[in-house]
C-alpha cells in the first residue's frame, strides 16, 4: 500500500473545515512534494516531518513522496498538519495499517525530536468532529483537556509521534482523556471585588444600572479617579455565564490559542482593556483569513476603552455596527466571516486634556483645546453610550474614612433580579435586555403615564434633547424601574435616567 489518507481539520474564521491529508510514497526520483493551496508554514512541514520520523526511530526511505491536502480550494495555514502528514506517510509506508486511521481525526505540530506541540483551535475542531460523527480524535497532549470538554467523542492526548504510532499499531494503549471535571471546577478564580473601592457610590450606582440593562457606559473623570478599577470589576457583577455561553467564548479563545491547559473552560466573563494605539484590524479582527479581534474576545463580557479621545476616529467608528448588531461581518476575497461581538462597552475619558475641568483654579486648558479634545469623538458614537457618569477625583478623606461598601455579589444579586424581570417581559422575543429594545418596541414596553410624559416633554425642551437621547433615556428609565422592581416607569426613574444621559459636547464649549 503506497497511498493513504488521514483526516484532519483547519479553522477558517470561526468555522472548521475538514481536510484530507493524502500521502503517496512511490519509487522514483527521491523527493518531497506538497500540494493543496498551502501557506509557507504548512510547506515547511516537510522538513519537520522527515526529521521527526527519523528521530522517532523509524526509517525514512529514499523514495518519492507526494502530499496532498484536500479540498485544494481551501487555504491551509498553521503547523497543525504536521502530525497527520507524518501519520499518513507512515501508513503509506505500511508502518500503520490504513484501517486504524480511518474515522480518526488527527491534529498536532511536530518537533524535530518527534514530540507533539500544542496547536490552537482544538475545541471547535473536536466539536465539529463530534457533530460529523467521528468517534476518535488524536490531539497534542497539552490540548487534551480542552478537547475533552466535548462530550460524546473520545479524545486522546499524545506526547510524541512514537506514541501515536504505537497507539495506532496497537502496541501502546492510550486512555481517552476524561472530562476535566476538577479543572473545570477549580478554574473559577478570585475576581476583583467592588468592596475594594472605597466610596465612589455614584460610579457604583451607574455601573449597577448599566449592567442591569445591558447599557454601554461612559466614565468622565480626571486621571486616577478609579475609572479602570471600576470597569475591571464589571464582569464580577454580570450574571454568571451559562455552560452554553462558556463554550461559545472558550471556542473563540481556543482559536486564538489562549486556552490555559490548567483551566480549559472559560467561566468568567472576559474583560478586555484595549490600548488606544489599537488598529481597526486589532479591534474587529483581520488578516488574510480573518482571526477574531478584541471585540470578539470581549464577547459576553466587557470591552474597556480608556482615554477614548486618544483612539483614532476611524477605529471608533467601526465599533458602531457591532454595537448595534452584536456581531461583526468581515469580507475578504475568500469569503465573508462573521464573528460574534456581543459585549458591554465601557469607555473612559478626561473632561479636558489636563483633566481638571471644571475646576478653573487648576484647569489650564483653553476652550479651544477642550473642543479639540472632545471633537475627536463623533456625537454618533457618544450617543451609543447610554449611561454617562462622572468619576470624581478620590480624596484622601474618602479613602481613609469611608467604610467598605457593598461587595460584588450583593450588587450582582440585584442585577440578576432585574435581568430576571427583563427575561420574563421579553419572553418569546429576541430581546434579552432593555438596551436591545428597538424604537418601535419602546411604545409597547416603556409606556409612560400622563405625569411622566409631561416631565419628559419638559426635559426635551429645557435640556435640548435629541430624538436619539430621548429613546436612550426611556430605555435607561425602564432599567432603573426594573432595579426598583416597579411595574411601570415613574417620574423618579425618568429623572435619574436624564441625569445619566450622554454628554453633549456643548457642555464644555459654553
Amino acid at each position, binding site marked *: 500500500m503506497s497511498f493513504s489518507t488521514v483526516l484532519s481539520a483547519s479553522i477558517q474564521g470561526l468555522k472548521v473545515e475538514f481536510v484530507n491529508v493524502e500521502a503517496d510514497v512511490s519509487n522514483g526520483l527521491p523527493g518531497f512534494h506538497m500540494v493543496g493551496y498551502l501557506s509557507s508554514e504548512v510547506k515547511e512541514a516537510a522538513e519537520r516531518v522527515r526529521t521527526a520520523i527519523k528521530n522517532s526511530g523509524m526509517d525514512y526511505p529514499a523514495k518519492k513522496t507526494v502530499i496532498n491536502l484536500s479540498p485544494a480550494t481551501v487555504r491551509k495555514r498553521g503547523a497543525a498538519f504536521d502530525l497527520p502528514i507524518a501519520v499518513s506517510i507512515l501508513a503509506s509506508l505500511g508502518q500503520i495499517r490504513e484501517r486504524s486511521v480511518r474515522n480518526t481525526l488527527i491534529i498536532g505540530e511536530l518537533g524535530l525530536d518527534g514530540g507533539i506541540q500544542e496547536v490552537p483551535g482544538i475545541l471547535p475542531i473536536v466539536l465539529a468532529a463530534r457533530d460529523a460523527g467521528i468517534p476518535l480524535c488524536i490531539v497534542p497532549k497539552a490540548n487534551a483537556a480542552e478537547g475533552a470538554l466535548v462530550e460524546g467523542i473520545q479524545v486522546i492526548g499524545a506526547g510524541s509521534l512514537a506514541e501515536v504510532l504505537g497507539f495506532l499499531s496497537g502496541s501502546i494503549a492510550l486512555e481517552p482523556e476524561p472530562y476535566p471535571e476538577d479543572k473545570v471546577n477549580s478554574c473559577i478564580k478570585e475576581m476583583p471585588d467592588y468592596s475594594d473601592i472605597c*466610596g*465612589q*457610590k*455614584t*460610579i457604583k*450606582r*451607574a455601573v449597577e*444600572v448599566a449592567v442591569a440593562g445591558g447599557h454601554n457606559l461612559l466614565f*468622565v473623570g480626571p486621571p486616577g479617579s478609579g475609572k479602570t478599577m471600576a470597569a475591571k470589576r464589571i464582569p464580577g457583577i454580570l450574571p454568571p455565564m451559562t455552560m452554553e455561553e462558556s463554550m461559545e467564548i472558550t471556542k473563540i479563545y481556543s482559536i486564538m490559542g489562549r486556552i490555559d491547559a490548567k483551566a480549559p473552560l472559560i467561566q468568567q466573563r472576559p474583560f478586555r482593556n484595549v490600548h488606544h494605539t489599537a488598529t481597526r484590524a486589532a479591534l474587529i479582527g483581520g488578516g488574510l483569513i480573518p482571526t477574531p479581534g478584541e471585540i470578539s474576545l470581549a464577547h459576553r463580557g466587557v470591552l474597556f476603552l480608556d482615554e477614548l479621545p486618544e483612539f483614532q476616529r476611524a477605529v471608533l467608528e467601526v465599533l458602531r455596527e457591532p454595537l448595534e448588531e452584536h456581531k461583526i461581518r468581515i469580507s475578504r476575497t475568500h469569503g465573508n466571516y462573521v464573528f460574534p461581538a456581543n459585549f458591554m462597552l465601557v469607555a473612559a475619558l478626561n*473632561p479636558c486634556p489636563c483633566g481638571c*475641568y*471644571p*475646576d*478653573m*483654579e487648576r484647569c489650564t486648558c*483653553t*476652550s479651544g483645546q477642550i473642543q479639540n479634545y472632545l471633537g475627536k469623538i463623533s456625537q454618533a458614537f457618544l450617543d451609543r453610550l447610554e449611561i*454617562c*457618569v*462622572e468619576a*470624581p477625583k478620590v480624596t484622601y478623606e*474618602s479613602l481613609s474614612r469611608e467604610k467598605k461598601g457593598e461587595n460584588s455579589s450583593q450588587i450582582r444579586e440585584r442585577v440578576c433580579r432585574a435581568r430576571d424581570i427583563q427575561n420574563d417581559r421579553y419572553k418569546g422575543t429576541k430581546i434579552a435586555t432593555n438596551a436591545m429594545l428597538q424604537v418601535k418596541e419602546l411604545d409597547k414596553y416603556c409606556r409612560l403615564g400622563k405625569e411622566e410624559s409631561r*416631565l419628559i416633554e*419638559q*426635559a426635551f425642551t*429645557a*435640556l435640548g434633547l435629541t430624538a436619539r437621547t430621548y429613546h436612550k433615556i426611556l430605555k435607561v428609565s425602564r432599567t*432603573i424601574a426594573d432595579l426598583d422592581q416597579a411595574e411601570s416607569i415613574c417620574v*423618579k426613574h425618568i*429623572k*435619574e435616567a*436624564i*441625569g*445619566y444621559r450622554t*454628554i453633549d459636547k456643548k*457642555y*464644555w*464649549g*459654553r
Partner: protein
Amino acid sequence: MKYEYWFAQIARVNDRKKYFLREYLGTAKDIFYIEEMKLNKMEFLNEQDVNTIMQAKKTLDPDMLYKDLKKKSIRFIPWFSEEFPEKLCEIPTPPYALYVKGSIPERTKKTVAIVGARRCTHYGEKYALEYGEKLAQCDVSVISGLARGIDGAGHRGALMGKGSTYAVLGCGVDICYPREHIGLYTDILRQQGGILSEFPPGTPPVGCNFPRRNRIISGLSDVVLVMEAGEKSGSLITADMALEQGRDIYALPGPVNSSLSRGCNQLIRQGAGILLSPERLLDELGILPISSGENTDKNKKVLETGENMVYSRLCPYPKNLSQLAEETDLPPGEVLEKLVSLELQGYVKEISKNYYVTL
C-alpha cells in the same frame, strides 16, 4: 473723504504724527498731493515716516480703498468728524479714527463697560450676564471686547435685556475674533448695537492690539465693571487705563481663595467700587433708585424638602454629584433625581458631566 480714509490707513506712522501733519496741512488731500521735499522739511517726521507716506501714495489707491469700505458697509469716523464720540476725545491718547459696523454709543445714554478674564468661572460668567441684562433693561449701553469668557457673557446679557451693546475689537471690524462668537457678532448688529475698532478693516488679531483696544473700551464708558480677573489679567490693564482716563471702576468681589477673583479683590482693596447688586449699581449711577424689599424674592423658592436639601448644598462654583451625595448622605441615584428636578425647574445648571452650579 477718500483721502482722509487713505491717510488713516497708514498704520506705520503713529497717530500723534498723523494728527500733527493733518493739522499742519489742513486736509488729507493736501497730504496726498504734497511733494516729498516738503514733507522732508517737517521736523516732527523722520525719514522713515516720509518714506512710508510716499510709499503709500504709490501702493494705496484712495478710490479703490474707499469703494471697498463702502462695499463692506463699514463707517469711517476720523477724530475731527462730528460723529466721533466725545468721550474718546478726552482720553490721553485718542485713536486717529474709528471704523464702525452698525452704530456707535449714543451720546445721551450712559455707557458701562463689562470686562473680565477670558478663562472665567461660572460665577463670573453668571454675574456678567446678570449685570449686562439689568443694565440693558435700564437703557444703559454695555460695552465690551467680544472676547471669550466674561466679555461674551456681558454682551449676551445685554442682548437678553433687549438693549444695545457695543463690541470694541483688537482687529478689523470685518473680522470676527474669536471665530466661535460669530453668532454673538451678528446678534449685536441685529439689535442696533455696533462693532467698533481703531484698526483698519482687514487688520488681523495680533496680540499687541488688545491692550490698545482696552483703552477704547474704558474710554467709551462712564463706568468700568471688572467681573473676574486674575492677578495678571488683561482686564487689570483696562482698569489702569480707566483710572488714567478718570472713569469709575467697580469690581465684583470673589472668594479670597479663588485665584481668578484675586485681581478683583485687589482692585476693591485699592479703592474700586464694590458690586453688591445690579440695583445698587443703578442707584449709584443715578439711573434707578433702589426700591426696597423687591430683591428678596430669590430666597422664596418653594421647593420640596429633598430638593431643598440638595439645593442648599449648591453654590455658583461647581460641585459634583459624589460630593453632594456625600454631604446630603442620600443615595446617589436619589440625589441625581433631585438635581434633574432642580435643573428642569431652572434652579441649577449642569456645566460639565455631573457638575452642578446654582443659577
